């Protein structure tokens, strides 16, 4: 089912948190939300989940509004992680799954599978407060996906995890997608979104600055990057027509150019000077696009 966000606006008093946002999130796809703190990501998620009413606009999933009758099919990992500190993992995960409409026995079986998968079966009878923060996050993730949701909303799923656990969780998210779950997730790590999402949206001050499929965004951006490593000085390239930005590195230079044809000219220009150890034409990174569109560094 398609998740459709149509002209959503949310105001808190005089402050506009989300401004006229329209998105279409196709079924079985992974959709990435990027944006600085306060860009309106969490507010958008809360409106998608029906926790908050929008000031204007409409959000539908498969043509119907999302409310408590659809909560069986929706999973949510909030940005502010939270579980009952005093309850045992098993008790609370089963409780939360039952609130999503799952049967008790099934929930227990699924929980065992997930704990097995995350290599922590012994946590079932531990209290949450006894677990490390990273492990608590695994439990939190299980709480969001245990009931096999069709639409999964992950607010900063990888923040605060070590690289090993990031990989573990990423793999789990990709598996869910393979099994047909529509996933919307936000991250402040550009590379995660770049790596995992077909579609994305960059939010800035409540409004979408860029949105569409990753390939289209990169294509329409036009600009490319060139990385050159050479034994001679490359400083004269700063003034070369078509070069927008330059950054000196230890081994050479990084250039941002207006298009592919400039790269060709660049190569011809420097060949006579001597030995070139590396010449690479690269797609622009999301970070480049973000900086370009928002006008400020992201991280």
């Amino acid at each position, binding site marked *: 089912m398609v998740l459709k966000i149509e002209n959503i606006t949310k105001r808190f008093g005089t402050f506009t948190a989300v401004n006229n946002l329209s998105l279409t999130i196709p079924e079985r796809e992974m959709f990435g939300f990027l944006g600085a703190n306060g860009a309106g990501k969490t507010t958008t998620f809360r409106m998608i989940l029906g*926790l908050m009413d929008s000031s204007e606009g409409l959000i539908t999933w498969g043509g119907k509004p999302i409310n408590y009758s659809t909560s069986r099919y929706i999973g949510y990992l909030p940005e502010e992680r939270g579980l009952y*500190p005093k309850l045992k993992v098993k008790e609370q995960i089963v409780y939360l799954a039952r*609130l999503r409409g799952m049967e008790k026995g099934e929930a227990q079986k699924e929980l065992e599978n997930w704990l097995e998968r995350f290599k922590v079966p012994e946590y079932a009878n531990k209290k949450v407060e006894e677990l490390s923060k990273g492990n608590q996050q695994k439990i939190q993730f299980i*709480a969001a996906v245990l009931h096999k949701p069709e639409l999964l909303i992950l607010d900063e799923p990888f923040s605060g995890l070590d690289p090993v656990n990031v990989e573990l969780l990423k793999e789990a998210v990709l598996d869910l997608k393979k099994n047909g779950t529509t996933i919307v997730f936000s991250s402040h790590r550009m590379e995660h979104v770049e790596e995992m999402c077909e579609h994305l949206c960059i939010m800035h001050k409540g409004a979408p600055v860029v949105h569409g499929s990753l390939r289209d965004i990169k294509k329409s951006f036009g600009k490319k990057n060139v990385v050159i490593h050479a034994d001679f000085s490359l400083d004269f390239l700063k003034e070369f027509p078509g070069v927008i930005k330059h950054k000196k590195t230890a081994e050479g230079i990084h250039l941002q150019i207006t298009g592919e044809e400039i790269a060709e000219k660049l190569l011809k220009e420097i060949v006579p000077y001597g030995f070139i150890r590396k010449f690479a034409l690269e797609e622009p990174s999301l970070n480049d696009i973000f900086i370009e569109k928002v006008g400020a560094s992201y991280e």
Partner: protein
Amino acid sequence: MNKFWIILAHTYMSKLKSKSFIITTAVTLLIILGLTNLSNVMNYFNKGESGEEIVVVDESGALFSPLKEQVEAVNEDIKLTQFTGDEEAAKTAIREGEYDGLLLVRLNSVNLPEATYHAMTIADTTIANEVKNSLQQLKTQLAATQMELSPEELAKLYEPVEFEQLALEKNAKTEEELNQARGLVYVLLFVIYFSVILYANMIAMEVATEKSSRVMEILISSVSPIKQMFAKILGIGLLSITQMAVLLGVGYASIKQNLDTMQGGFFSFFGFGDIPLATIVYAVVFFILGYFLYSTLAAFLGSLVSRIEDIQQMITPMTMLIVAGFMIAMFGLGQPETPFITISSYIPFFAPMLMFMRVGMLSLPIWEPILAIAILIVTIILLAIFGARVYRGGVLMYGRSTSFKDIKKALQLTKNK
């Protein structure tokens, strides 16, 4: 199973199994058992002691035997013995612990008894008082004999005056009934007061815990906040009824068993001999209504704080309301018919205690408690509607401040425009 019942059962079971609940209940049970078995306990401890032994040095020689008779008739635990030695020897004996006290009695210039009492400490006044009272009676008798009064004349002099209070209103309570009602109402008021404070606090804590541990956001994405709020209120309500049932059941059984030893004493003053059913029914009704009123208030106040530490500050005004209601009710026990009490008993936040007090003490026309109950129900519904809206916004709000301005902010969060 419906989600409402899942939350209700979860709240009820997890609280019931919690250590703090089990310990509180056990301690309260012990106290109740101790109180209801008070006379047994006291007898047990007294068994070992032989009673107080007082030596008497009687200078006149005529006072000792009537005094001994008099004292031992009143309290058989006090033993008087005539001392053969002089005052100093008696004092030494007391210092050595042989006796508990020394009484020097003599006749004064008008041939009436007077006395001095010596003991290691005079902190325990009961013994000295009993001896003094006995001596007083002896003195009265002696003085009467001196004045040549016959025992009949003496009895006439001391006969208490007949004084009976009668109410003219048809079904007004008799004086005896009033005294009994006062005791019962007093105890039940305490029960209502404590349990409303206790369980309303529990609700506020529960909500604040879920909010501060941030599990709230998951909960409200599964189940509507309003459903959650009421499931929680009912769950804790059920818990309170369970606790009450256990405590009252054990208390009642224990009183029943010990009734013989308590007859006529402290307990009949509290009106436990013959408990009027209506008072109990009203107590239950007003307890339940009071609980719902204050727990709804507590739930939405709890939803406004971000940290557990702030919860006490937030619910203090509510606690003040309960304390004020209780104070007015206590004051009203002595004069339940003053207009101030009557008017206050219709104010919803005071009604659970005040109207209960009035209905227990006075013979009110039936419409009065029913009107108060209706006012309470309407207030609870209004508070629930308002509280649910605050709760819905409040649970999403994580701020530093804990002021009542937050209520406005919380309402804004749920507003459409």
